[in-house]
């Protein structure tokens, strides 16, 4: 019986190591962090793409005629905005998304580091009886 991604403890392994509550908690934390990491990585990818779109947009918008209002999407509708206002909004959105991407990045780094620690601890106790690698 194993989790979807990790065969946590291999059945046939006969090394005599008792699993203590502390070990169990480490295993839980590891599994939890792994799930969290996956969802953060998904989110990071999404935001990163969004950021690239915004960067492109910021470049393109420079080339527009500043006499012409631009349709800018707010909610589900487009609002005709003077170019300058639209640019300001793009800048604001860019700043917001930069902050989000940075935050995700540091969360991912933190979780990865924590997982490495747990890996070391668990491998040193269970050796080959436990598998913590991504399938």
């Amino acid at each position, binding site marked *: 019986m194993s989790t979807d991604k990790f065969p946590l403890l291999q059945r046939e392994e006969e090394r005599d190591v008792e699993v203590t509550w502390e070990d169990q908690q480490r295993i839980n934390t590891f599994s939890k962090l792994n799930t969290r990491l996956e969802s953060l990585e998904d989110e990071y990818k999404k935001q990163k793409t969004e950021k690239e779109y915004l960067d492109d947009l910021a470049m393109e918008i420079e080339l527009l005629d500043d006499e012409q209002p631009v349709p800018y999407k707010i909610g589900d509708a487009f609002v*005709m905005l003077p170019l300058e206002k639209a640019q300001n909004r793009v800048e604001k959105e860019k700043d917001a998304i930069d902050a989000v991407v940075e935050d995700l990045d540091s969360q991912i780094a933190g979780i990865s580091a924590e997982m490495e620690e747990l890996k070391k601890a668990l491998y040193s106790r269970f050796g080959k009886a436990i598998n913590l690698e991504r399938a």
Partner: protein
Amino acid sequence: MEANPRGIPKAPFVDNVDQYMKTDTVEATLRKFTEAASKYRFMENSKLQQRASLEQKIPEIEKSLAMVEFLTEKRGSDQSVETLFEVNDTLYAHATIPPTDTVNLWLGANVMLEYTLDEAQELLSSKLSIAKTSLKEAIEDLEFLRDQITIMEVNTARVYNWDVKRRRMEKDAVSA
């Protein structure tokens, strides 16, 4: 039985397999563990759906809120706002919004209610924060459920190993 804030019970951790196995047969114990794990998985599924629906709902509220905030910025000016509004998925039409102090919010159940911009903003903000809290709780529950499933799996693996070892010892004793 101990439980998390939303009343999901904690899985029992088997501290000492020898002790634990004194009361029940291996088959019964394994069956019990599998049953518990599948109950947790069932809850996990329903929480996953809850999370998906919230993750869809939150951007919708944010969109409405963005528009209300935009109209609030425009309030007091005598200029109307030119828009292209969505008639259908791929169809947009021009609309001019004269300066306004009010918006109509769709409340569900075929009801739309007129609010002042401030009230609308307040309502949407509170809806947003409630949805975000529920999402956080759903994620907490999912992590909690994952823990319990892991515990049951480790329990299962250990009882199984314990049984394999016991059988082998019995066999060795017979052949010796």
